[in-house]
């Protein structure tokens, strides 16, 4: 519930967009931004760390495919507010609670795209590689993974951008990056400038990740670049 203001300006002077706010709160914004990036990157890296071995396992033992994607799908359905709350008794009010919860969501996206990408590799290319005398590991790392890389990177990009937005929910346990600023702005008597600036900063961060990872994705498809020229 919003409580009457600590540091919030009077209602008459409560603009949404205030350059003054930005310049006078650069430290707060920078700290929130650092936390936001750190939480996002840790969650996505953790998801990758689990998703890749899992994708390999699922491809080797196809029977595991249904259950693995099914369980990941059910976990994806659990609301972030609920997941953070379910992890809270174990990990408490710590960044780990937020990172673990967000990694769960990133996991499904990365896992699906990795499996779909690897399955999408033309079997005749794999046959050709085998004909050239490549072993299983060589085929995987030098043929299948490079060809599936655009799909895998698309998964990482989508997961990362979604995670940037979801980090804000971490404000509930005190680790929400810009989300903590949004929530505290709301609780400090609807401090419009803080709410709006933090939301805009969050969008900006998501756009930066989107553009950067999209560039990386384009770089990973040399055939795509050839066509573009």
């Amino acid at each position, binding site marked *: 519930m919003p409580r009457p203001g600590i540091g919030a300006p009077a209602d008459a002077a409560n603009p949404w967009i205030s350059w003054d706010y930005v310049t006078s709160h650069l430290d707060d914004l920078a700290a929130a931004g650092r936390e936001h990036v750190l939480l996002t990157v840790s969650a996505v890296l953790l998801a990758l760390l689990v998703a890749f071995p899992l994708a390999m396992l699922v491809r080797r033992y196809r029977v595991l495919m249904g259950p693995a994607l099914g369980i990941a799908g059910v976990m994806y359905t659990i609301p972030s507010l609920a997941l953070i709350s379910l992890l809270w008794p174990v990990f408490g009010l710590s960044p780990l609670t937020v990172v673990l919860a967000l990694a769960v969501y990133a996991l499904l996206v990365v896992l699906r795209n990795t499996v779909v990408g690897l399955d999408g590799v033309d079997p005749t290319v794999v046959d050709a590689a085998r004909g050239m005398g490549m072993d299983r590991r060589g085929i995987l790392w030098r043929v299948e993974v490079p060809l599936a890389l655009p799909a895998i990177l698309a998964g990482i990009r989508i997961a990362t951008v979604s995670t940037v937005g979801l980090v804000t929910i971490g404000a509930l346990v005190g680790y929400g990056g810009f989300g903590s600023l949004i929530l505290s702005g709301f609780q400090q008597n609807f401090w419009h400038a803080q*709410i709006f600036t933090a939301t805009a900063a969050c969008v900006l961060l998501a756009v930066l990740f989107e553009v950067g990872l999209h560039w990386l994705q384009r770089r990973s498809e040399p055939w795509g670049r050839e066509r573009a020229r």
Partner: protein
Amino acid sequence: MELWAWFTDPAHWSGPNGIPVRTWEQVLMSTLAMGIALGVALPVAVLLGHLRRGVLLATNLSNVGRAVPTLGVLIILASVPSIGVGDTAAVLALALFAIPPLMTNTVAGMTSVDPDVLDAGRAMGMTAGQRLLRVELPLAAPLILAGIRTAAVQVVATASLAALVGGGGLGRYVVDGFALQDGTLILAGAILTALLAITTEGLFALLERVATPRALLARQAHLAPIADVLT
């Protein structure tokens, strides 16, 4: 064990803060939001898809939807004096975020219809309206329904955030639990919210199966597409 005691306490099953009322609030908010989103997104998306346009728009919309934090929009809406704190802000925010998955899937469904099939319909003497209602929409139905399912689950899940801006719903337990440092209340709220989301997913998956033309069921045997994969 405390959790068991909480769930079996009859006091938690009645009154304005009881489980039935809170569940109903969450369902009501979600239904209203879905109603608004469907009313806005479906006509536009069906038209764009029918004209074989809007693929780029739909993709961009889902990119924007991903990048904008729900919490930020919810709190901005709740801070606008004419909207104010409570369920209205939540319904509006939920509706906004339901539009991208609905648009993306509907446009994808409509544009995935084989043009040859439409030509066959024309050759059989079908009017434009008949082709839309009896060829295009049924063939696009699986993807449109997948979009509705994605949107509905997302809306029901996100509706728990309403409690952060003074609204009702099952998120109330979680938010109050954090405010009161009451672990049992937090866990109970989390479990109820998760169950409601999973139930919604199940119900809509069932609806999808029932409403998919039988001829298409066999083709769909593998995973139904998530709006997100490979975009």
